[in-house]
């Protein structure tokens, strides 16, 4: 039985950096979930996934992640996506790693 469709966003990891990226309405990839396209119907979701899968030189492992829509844009509705959006909740000691962060 097919899983019930849930509204959400298309996310992936950036090929070069591995960073979390989201598919925006204009077909570009953005790093902020709030700027991602919120997808509400199944046909659109399939089309956007197909578009994402056609860009393997940018996006690794695109998938549809369930999300909620708010005035400020889409927000995660599961903690895994929240952590993906925020980065590690326990950053290494503060003095470390500012150089490349």
């Amino acid at each position, binding site marked *: 039985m097919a899983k019930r469709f849930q509204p959400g966003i298309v996310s992936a*990891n950036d*090929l*070069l*950096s*591995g*960073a*979390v990226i989201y598919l925006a309405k204009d077909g570009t990839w953005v790093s902020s979930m709030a700027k991602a396209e919120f997808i509400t119907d199944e046909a659109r979701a399939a089309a956007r996934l197909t578009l994402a899968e056609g860009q*393997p*030189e940018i996006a*690794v*492992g695109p998938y549809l992640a369930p999300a909620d829509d708010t005035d400020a844009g889409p927000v995660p*509705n*599961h*903690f*895994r996506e929240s*952590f*993906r959006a925020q*980065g*590690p*909740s*326990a950053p*290494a*000691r503060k*003095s*470390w*790693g500012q*150089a*490349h*962060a």
Partner: protein
Amino acid sequence: MLDAQENPTRSYLDRRVAEFRSQVQRRIDGALTEDEFRPFRLMNGLYLQLHAYMLRVAIPYGTLNADQLDVLAEVSERWDRGYGHFTTRQNIQYNWPKLPDVPDMLARLADVNLHAIQTSGNTIRNVTSDPLAGAHADELMDPRPVAELIRIWSTDHPEFQFLGRKFKIAVTGSPSDRAVTKAHDLGVRIVTRNGETGYQILVGGGLGRTPVVGKVIREFLPKADLLPYLEAVLSVYNLAGRRDNKYKARIKITVNEMGLEAFSARVDEAFTRIRPAFSGADQTLLEELQSAFAPPVLPPRDTGGFDAARRADPGFASWSDVNLRDHFADGYAIAMISLKPHGGVPGDASAGQMRAVAQLARDFGHDEIRVTQEQNLVLPHVAKADLPALYARLKAQGLATANVGLASDIIACPGMDYCALATARSIPVAQQIAETLADHEIEVGEMAIKISGCINACGHHHIGDIGILGLDRAGVENYQITLGGDAGTDMRIGEKTGRGFSYDEVAGAVERLIHAYLDLRDEGERFRETLARTGAEPFKAALYEEDTAHAA
């Protein structure tokens, strides 16, 4: 393979780096799809995690010299975020490499004979060993020459590159098993019988979704039979192991389904076939390795300064009480360096700290550093006379936490802060618990708390006195507690207590367990001994006291 003099040779490593460099380039150019590229990157220890790539570098049997540790530091600064994470399998992980940089990282690591080969994929993984090998007073024989022999034999072994599943081997030479051999697909324990040295072989141990304690398949294997016997075990597993279901593909399932006796009979058959191919070259090599691993010359040193410093400085006294282990040589000690500052990330070390430890190894430690399964570092050969100076320099680097083996020396896997497979966070749970327990951990004494962020059990939660497993329960992090695990010679799997705890409750729950232990224990009793005497009930009562209070 066995004909290599120095293995892996520089030319072999160079070839592997060049190969990977071209694969990365082809992936970036679009000539390779991700599906085609993934196996190549995994063969080179490169994973894609939640927020970034992760490069896992093997530290064979946990032994490093100062130059190698310096290069680990340099790699973290040039191509990552200035720190590395030491894992429970004697590896180091870089959490933020960029794909185009990875070939350069590997090339730099190859300069000091380090690499990421067979740190991933269904092969024989990094061979692990006792981190106190060649130094501890209770050791029968240094296990590292044997570990190295196995590593040489297994690296790039043509038959064993595509096993049904990954295969982990550990070797110990001490009766107090510090290599957790019973939690490995195959464990080797050096033993003696009637004055002859040989090996006890364990098979089918492992943690993960189905934790199993390794079983003895051979009580005593003569020395010269080791490699042919291992080859026999691997070949039986390779043929009989299941390939239809990833979760049933480890050798522990093969052994359980076939039964130890039948499995062992098939190994014996294979052994008879394989044995003649080993003409003794491996034994010559082992002898060479044994001299290469000979202990450093340790001249007698006066310990008066050490005793005086202990009297003068309570901080040093407490550190030396907790973080030193017995060395075989008089006047020497094994110095454990905690990577578990209270509230820090377990197992993380900054580039500056790695460099400082490398320099300490040069100045005081005969150029040797070890990495432990508990995610700490070790200087295995330090004269007691040098310990006060060592301590002062560790302190300046934030590396003098006196907690090795205590409650805040928590093993925690990366969990959902980094790991793509995680079902919950581990690191912040460890931080909360460490901070909660820091004040009374000396009173509590030896205590192993271990946390995994999913059922794969990289944090060894099954074998902690207190084990914590983070799960996703209906979209909320939930932590299941197990009690009474033991990572020692008689490894034991802990037992589940009852309902899990939320992220906010779990540190408090562990604190209640610790208080219950303090109330219940007889003098000198370890947690697991108290638990064995009282049973789990009083501990469960402490854990779930609020439930019963509400019910009342």
